[in-house]
């Protein structure tokens, strides 16, 4: 009798253990193997990230300067041959598209997974070259005058209240240095807004392919000025796809050269 009970207990324990094991393995299986509906977006994301990575590698292999906009890390980096030259923290990022009388004019062309090419500053930096005409040396020629001391970059290149980097195919970046400037007066802001509004109206009505897609980037005023003064000609831009590990070149951090708190220059 006791043997029978013991046998029954053993069987019951084995059945319970088996059921528990089966349940655990089923749960584990359920976690490890996602359904096709879960795999599909993952596949699409990976495809997109890989294509952007491929473009980054192509740019790094070239001789052109390029900007890398990482919306996830909130920064824009000027690069050349894979080297980070200058990193600017992005305080705000918006996408602007033209509209006329509240009717939006969408540009059907893709702009996120492509390289934006041949970016140029608008208004361009004016290079005021000093021309020195040297007289041929003679016995009677006086000692030539020493050239004047050149201005500082701040004096040479005044930064406009709004500037663009215009790329091919109607894509552009817009930077408004006054936007994040706490020291800018209300009147200056109002004037900048008014001027920008009128320019935008004209661009939306008449600019058919000049400003089809516009990325508005908010940088702190010092960074905005630095980008305007330093941006090389014919720069490219690539926008990183989100949901990726940190970009090579280290973890995102403000550039040691120019952080908002520093007051060098």
């Amino acid at each position, binding site marked *: 009798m006791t043997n029978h009970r013991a046998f029954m207990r053993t069987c019951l324990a084995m059945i319970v253990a088996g059921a528990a094991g089966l349940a655990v393995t089923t749960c584990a299986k359920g976690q490890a193997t996602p*359904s*096709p509906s879960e*795999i599909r*977006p993952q*596949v*699409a994301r*990976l*495809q997109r*990230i*890989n294509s952007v*990575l*491929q473009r980054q590698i192509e740019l*790094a292999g070239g*001789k052109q*300067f390029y900007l890398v906009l990482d919306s996830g890390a909130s920064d824009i980096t000027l690069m*050349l*041959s*894979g*080297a*980070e*030259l*200058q990193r600017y923290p992005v305080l705000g*990022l918006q*996408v*602007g*598209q033209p*509209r*006329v*009388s*509240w009717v*939006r004019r969408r540009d059907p062309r893709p702009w996120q997974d492509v390289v934006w090419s041949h970016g140029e500053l608008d208004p361009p930096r004016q*290079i005021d*070259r*000093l*021309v020195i005409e*040297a*007289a*041929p*040396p003679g016995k009677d020629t006086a*000692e*030539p005058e020493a*050239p004047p*001391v*050149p*201005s*500082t*970059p701040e004096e040479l290149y005044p930064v406009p209240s709004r500037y663009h980097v215009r790329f091919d195919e109607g894509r552009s970046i817009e930077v408004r240095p006054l936007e994040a400037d706490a020291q800018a007066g209300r009147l200056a802001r109002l004037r900048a807004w008014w001027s920008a509004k009128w320019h*935008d*109206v004209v*661009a*939306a009505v008449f600019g058919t392919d000049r*400003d089809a897609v*516009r990325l508005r980037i908010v940088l702190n005023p010092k960074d905005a000025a630095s980008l305007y003064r330093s941006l*090389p000609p014919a720069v490219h831009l690539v926008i990183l796809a989100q949901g990726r590990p940190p*970009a*090579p*070149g*280290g973890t995102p951090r403000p550039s*040691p050269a120019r952080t908002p708190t520093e007051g060098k*220059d």
Partner: protein
Amino acid sequence: MDPLPSLPTSTGATPPTAGPEPGPVAAPPVAGLITRALRRLVQVRFDRRAVVAVAISALFVGIAWAGTGYRYQPFIDGPATISGKVPTGDGELKPLAARLDRRFRELTARLKTTAPRGVYIVIDQTQNRLYLKRDDDTLLEARCSAGSGMVLKETGGKKREWVFDSPRGRFEVLAMWRNPVWAKPDWAFIEEGQPIPINPADRLESGSLGEYALYFGNGFMIHGTLYERLLGRAVSHGCVRVGRDDLRKVWANARLGTRIYIY
């Protein structure tokens, strides 16, 4: 008896009558003008319908103007869609995901290899700043002097022209010299108004390039300067001038082949 009518003069003008001397006409006061204009405006009868039509038109134009320009929306990373042949079954999706994951790791590794490792130099020629970097760390930020952008024109002789710009792009340290001696090029003599020497030995000048020079091709160098007070301003002829202490740090860290990025 009626007076005889006066005969017209040959010019047709009547002879001037005696009267007071004409003087300057007193301008009416501004306030008077305004009140007169307002009175006239009040007297004008506006068509009520026209006023309403103009007001409504202005309102519509205003609304249209307000809705014209650029509409900004927060940046959202675009939706990812599978490109190419869309696999349907679970059996096709899984291998594709695995392949893409392998490809992702491969591309990430390739991208890492493009970044410079070890010590490299970055020069911002507009801001006149030199950064000495090691991997992701900045070892030194120094003021420097890049090319002035000036143009020198030779009025006599060969009528040559030089533009004193620093180059942009990626370079490497090709040679390193301690106590460099400068072999002055033609433009240096022309700029100083001196005759160009025939003997090459007369071109040599020591001390003007500082203690060290790092040559990176096409006549361009990173070197010291006698004019440290001008650091931070673009005054050079294309080379990059650095202060003495900063140059020592650059010299201590740089090697032949060290990459230099100038923008």
